[in-house]
């Protein structure tokens, strides 16, 4: 460890956003929106800047010589010989993750400044976002599994808070709970894996565990490493929304759109992929677990892609596409192509972040509309959003030379050339999913931006889906958060005097008053505020009520939202070039960069490991460069076919989708209802638990046994007291009588004792 001569102050990276969380969380209530935004951007921005400084210093020192680099801050706890340090760890993998999280995260923070401007709870939003950054950076920079687990749970918490951000809406609140609980199921697996690691290796530090693991041979049959790997997979399935634990992610779209972009596309959901890639020495030696990873990934990819085909909510399409793309990453990890998985993770962060932000911009432009059947023709109305979204769509579909092409192609090629059995099938699933991806993404693109604007016409198109649940808050009403309960009460007084008592909600758990009033009342309310209180905290409310009426015509978003879109669009185009494959005349820098972390071979003797790269599986049996070019052509062809079919269905012959859905009506309904998985879970797990809890645990055991015992004891004492309380009559002579009776009895007893 070279802490003294080469100190990167890694701890700054996570701690800076945490400071932002504290400042905004504790004092943001009293700040104006501008101050909140400044604080909320400053700290993640500083974190990003420091990350860039670190990268510069690492490359100046030569990445291969400087990394891996550990910086210990102290000991967390010590139990006998088992020590867990507070230490941060930087190697090629965590460096990439750190850049993605700080970079994409910061861009999305900037976007949120514009997107959230008209929502209540501005400070709350930014403090949660910063909190999320803190936990995610802890997760990727931790040097041991336990600290990683802290970040792991923390992002779950931040995710819960942000999904349920509009917590007055029931759907948002329950989506938050669903995400949290589903993640707990996965975390259970991770936790058991942690215990197994501690039991077998006596440590949770990556370096110690991996050096011990590297001495072990690959497990032909199931063994400890396989168990650890499978349990980690369970954890990763929860966090990264893989089958069967993906159900929380589509519902998570209830959160504000920047949250969907940041957490549910770009960063948090990639934690599972990161964990699998990080634990590659374990997975390399557990072929069974690896196969499971690959199969879960492939199944999830195609499963989610088919659901994505028929969804009408723009954000839900993107949600299923996220799940599907995460499946690709798992597939890559499952064939030991960890660097390809991480590469896809990076490019996916760019284009999926962009897709969500652009979708947010569309929703913003339409005043909260999320149903694609009510969109259309927006190409000319919001040109910036259109062009950036186009870049992202081509990127995710995998067209050359957009970012998605390189990463997806790399994955498919590595899957095909992997030595295991069934690699052909996995590859075919991957290619078919690529086709589906292209189709539903271009469906979204055509429905949103082409043809004529269908807003206000009710549900058009051929899809017979009931109207969507309430979207983001409507603009007919104004909802502002009172700075204090006192001010909330003042506002209620105003509403009462106006005789238009509409709504005055008190949100108990956070002691926040929400004043909800029709826009027509806003002007009077603002004047009254001016008159009634000079409190600076109300300035935010005044800003909100004096904001212009929302446009009902589609309008382009403000610059603060467009700049992030453009930045991400550029990244979506050029971001893949760092991994330009050698078959196409590049040199795949990305793969080479990550090689020291992920390419340690199982069979290699210790001597070869010392040299760093050992690559038996890099030269697969049927892997010629010309073949690789052919395969690239096949995957681009699949994407092109998707584009063509989407054009046929949604531009050329627009009655076609309806006819098709009628032709395969059963299958269509199944897809529309997401394979009835939620209903299945409801019947299989939730209902038995709820009913078991209600009838057995609550009514029988809690009410019957526990309350019964306590209440029974009380009732007995009461009955006994009722019997003896007659003695206390208030009559002095009767008391004397009792005393004498007692004395006589005692005397009699003593005499009886003396006799015997």
């Amino acid at each position, binding site marked *: 460890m070279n802490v003294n001569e080469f100190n990167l102050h890694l701890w700054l990276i996570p701690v800076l956003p945490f400071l932002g969380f504290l400042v905004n969380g504790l004092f943001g209530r009293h700040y104006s929106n501008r101050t909140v935004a400044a604080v909320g951007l400053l700290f993640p921005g500083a974190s990003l800047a420091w990350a860039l400084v670190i990268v510069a210093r690492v490359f100046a020192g030569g990445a291969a010589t400087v990394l891996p680099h550990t910086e210990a801050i102290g000991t967390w706890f010590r139990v006998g010989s088992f020590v867990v340090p507070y230490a941060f760890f930087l190697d090629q993998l965590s460096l990439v993750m750190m850049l993605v999280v700080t970079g994409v995260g910061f861009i999305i923070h900037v976007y949120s400044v514009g997107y959230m401007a008209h929502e209540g709870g501005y400070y709350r939003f930014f403090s949660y976002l910063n909190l999320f950054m803190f936990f995610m950076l802890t997760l990727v920079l931790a040097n041991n599994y336990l600290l990683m687990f802290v970040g792991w749970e923390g992002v779950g918490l931040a995710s819960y808070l942000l999904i349920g951000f509009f917590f007055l809406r029931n759907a948002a609140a329950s989506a938050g709970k669903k995400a949290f609980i589903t993640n707990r199921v996965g975390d259970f697996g991770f936790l058991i894996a942690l215990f197994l690691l501690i039991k077998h290796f006596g440590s949770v530090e990556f370096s110690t565990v991996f050096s011990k693991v590297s001495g072990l041979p690959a497990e032909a049959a199931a063994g400890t490493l396989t168990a650890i790997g499978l349990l980690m997979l369970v954890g990763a399935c929860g966090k990264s929304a893989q089958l069967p634990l993906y159900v929380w992610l589509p519902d998570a779209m209830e959160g504000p759109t920047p949250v969907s972009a940041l957490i549910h596309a770009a960063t948090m959901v990639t934690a599972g992929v990161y964990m699998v890639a990080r634990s590659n020495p374990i997975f390399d030696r557990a072929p069974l677990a690896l196969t499971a990873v690959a199969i879960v990934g492939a199944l999830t990819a195609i499963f989610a892609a088919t659901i994505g085909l028929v969804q009408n909510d723009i954000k839900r399409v993107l949600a299923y596409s996220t799940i599907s793309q995460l499946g690709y990453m798992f597939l890559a990890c499952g064939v030991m192509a960890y660097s390809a998985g991480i590469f896809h993770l990076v490019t996916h962060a760019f284009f999926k972040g962009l897709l969500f932000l652009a979708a947010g911009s569309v929703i913003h432009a339409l005043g909260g509309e999320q149903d694609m059947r009510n969109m259309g023709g927006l190409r000319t109305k919001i040109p910036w959003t259109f062009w950036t979204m186009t870049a992202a769509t081509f990127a995710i579909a995998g067209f050359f030379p957009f970012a998605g092409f390189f990463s997806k192609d790399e994955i498919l090629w590595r899957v095909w050339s992997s030595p295991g059995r069934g690699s052909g099938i996995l590859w075919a699933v991957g290619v078919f999913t690529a086709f589906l991806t292209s189709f539903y993404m271009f469906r979204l693109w055509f429905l949103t931006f082409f043809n004529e604007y269908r807003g206000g016409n009710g549900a058009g198109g051929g899809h017979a889906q009931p109207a969507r649940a309430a979207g983001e808050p409507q603009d007919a009403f104004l909802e502002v958060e009172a700075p204090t309960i006192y001010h909330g009460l003042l506002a209620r007084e105003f509403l009462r005097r106006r005789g238009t008592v509409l709504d005055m909600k008190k949100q108990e758990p956070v002691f926040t008053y929400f004043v909800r009033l029709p826009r027509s009342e806003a002007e009077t309310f603002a004047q009254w505020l001016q008159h009634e209180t000079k409190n600076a905290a109300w300035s935010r409310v005044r800003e909100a009520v004096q904001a212009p009426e929302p446009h009902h015509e589609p309008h382009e978003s403000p610059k603060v939202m467009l700049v992030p879109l453009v930045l991400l669009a550029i990244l979506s185009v050029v971001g893949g070039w760092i991994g330009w494959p050698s078959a196409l005349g590049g040199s795949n820098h990305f793969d080479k960069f990550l090689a020291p972390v992920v390419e340690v071979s199982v069979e290699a003797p210790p001597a070869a490991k010392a040299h760093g790269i050992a690559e038996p599986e890099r030269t697969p049996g049927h892997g010629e460069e010309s073949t690789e070019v052919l395969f690239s052509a096949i995957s681009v062809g699949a994407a092109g076919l998707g584009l063509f079919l989407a054009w046929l269905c949604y531009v050329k012959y627009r009655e076609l989708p309806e006819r098709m859905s009628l032709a395969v009506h059963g299958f269509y309904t199944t897809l529309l209802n997401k394979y009835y998985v939620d209903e299945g879970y409801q019947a299989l797990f939730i209902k038995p638990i709820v009913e078991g809890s209600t009838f057995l645990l609550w009514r029988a055991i809690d009410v019957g046994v526990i309350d019964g015992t306590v209440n029974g004891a009380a009732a007995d004492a009461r009955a006994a007291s009722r019997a003896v*309380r007659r003695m*206390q*009559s*208030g*009559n*002095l*002579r009767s008391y*004397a*009588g009792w005393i*004498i009776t007692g004395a006589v009895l005692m005397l009699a007893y003593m005499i009886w004792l003396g006799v015997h």
Partner: protein
Amino acid sequence: MVPLSYYLVLSALLFAIGVAGFLVKRNIITIFMCIELMLNGVNLAFVAFANQYNLIEGNVFVFFVMVVAAAEAAVGLAIIISVFRTRETLNVDQVNLLKL
């Protein structure tokens, strides 16, 4: 020399009269005097035994009892006076507020 049993019988009679009076009488003053009677019955038994066995402890106990009785008389009479002031009666059957 009067035999010990005479004293003891007298003592028991005094105590029994005290008990009976305590139970039967309604006037607080009378009840109070009955308590004194019981105490003195016990005192008589103490001195009789002390004299019989030539032990000083019996006499010491009697003094204790007398001191306590004096203190009790002081407090008790004060209570009786204040009871009479508030309730204008000394009938214990009418002083029965303290009950369930």
